[in-house]
């Protein structure tokens, strides 16, 4: 049980480090020029590298991705409990009794 907890902690740590390192490299990407809409329509850029337009959008994205992963971990935890419960009920033939 303790080993499992340690493994989980290591996994979460590695995952957080991965996200952090990716976010650092992400911040270094050049943002496309969006100053003048007219010039953009007339002159197509050589190569468009997608990235957040400003610090506000950039922060929103980091918050969004963090929220997604937190939600996923919580949902998986809840679903695991649900799986245990429905498996137990199935083992007890609860649903077949109910049907009768």
């Amino acid at each position, binding site marked *: 049980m303790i080993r499992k907890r340690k493994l989980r902690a290591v996994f979460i740590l590695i995952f957080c480090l991965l*996200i952090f390192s*990716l*976010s650092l*490299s*992400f911040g270094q990407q050049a943002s*496309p020029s*969006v100053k003048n*809409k007219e010039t*953009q*329509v007339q002159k*197509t*850029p*050589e*190569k*468009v*590298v*997608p*990235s957040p*337009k400003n610090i506000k*959008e950039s922060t929103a*994205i980091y918050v*969004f*991705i963090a929220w*997604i*992963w937190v939600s*996923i971990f919580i*949902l*998986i935890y809840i*679903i*695991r409990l*649900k*799986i245990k419960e*429905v*498996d137990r009920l*199935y083992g007890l033939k609860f*649903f077949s009794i109910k049907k009768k």
Partner: protein
Amino acid sequence: MKVKDSLLSIQTWIDERLGLGAIFNFLREKKVPQHKHTIWFYTGSSILLFFVIQVVTGIMLAFYYKPTLEEANKSVARIMTEVPLGWIIRSVHFWSASFMIAIVFVHMISIWLVKAYRKPRELTWMSGVFLLLFTLGFGFTGYLLPWDDLSLSATKVGTDIPRSIPVVGAWVTNLLRGGEDVTGDTLTRFFGIHVSVLPLFLILLLGIHLYLIQKLGMSLPLDLEIKKEEVRELPFWPNFVYREMVVWFVFLGILFSLAIFLPPSLGKVADLMAPAPKGIKPEWYFLFLFQTLKIFPAKILFMTGDTLAVSLILLAGIFFFFLPLIDNKPAQSKGKIITIIAYLFILYAAVMTIWSLVT
């Protein structure tokens, strides 16, 4: 209590008209066998998940995309720079396509290895091969739509390959391109195929495929068929669906992370008169075929290397499609040669893909 009653009455109202209760009862009755290969069962529903994501993000992109020579690249650039969060939607569409194709490959290979295509599931396999082709068709047609130098060159190479097919080759190439060369007509044609023809046929075939799976049930691994042991089963709803949901959430998390941190860029607008840039390569899922064509010499005996390579690829495709008829042994037979061929195919595809990536 009142809310519960009104919800129940709405449910009854809908059920009386649509008969959805029968479907839910069927799902409750449906059982999923539990064994060491059950993990492969999750690939089917994951493909569906990514298909739904493709449809939703594709519709969102279609609101802004303009499939004309002048506007295609600009409209994609606009999606990426002006439309709020447009680059994320495009990135999710891009990564979701790759995920979908990867899982389709895994799904097909797993069925091949566990011999789940054998009687009575021949048609399920054949419809699956068509679904694989349509999925690859989505990837091929979608690649041209940004209309940048790379997508144009890759499409020129890709649409030129059928030309090597004996007798009908030139006709197929002209049909794909809408003329002799890749032009604005090809772009419009590919867009039409990408957003209407392929989805229509894919949904139709998907319906047939799912119907066959429900009708025939899930297959058992060979060793369990041979031993005729009683296999532990789980109800599809809710026990198996909950398990599938865990896989979906993990995939969704990875998809969004990749889409945000590794979004696809857009090259400069395609120039029809410009020479092909050096080192053009198709998407990763076509690399093994691309490398196969590259390794053949220009001429072998009385035919060109391209014709021989394309003919061999076509023969391999025919073998793949008719696999249930070639390996039509009873379920108890192990079919070792077919297993060896499957492993050789995996090895070949992996080696060719890596070779193409590093050269």
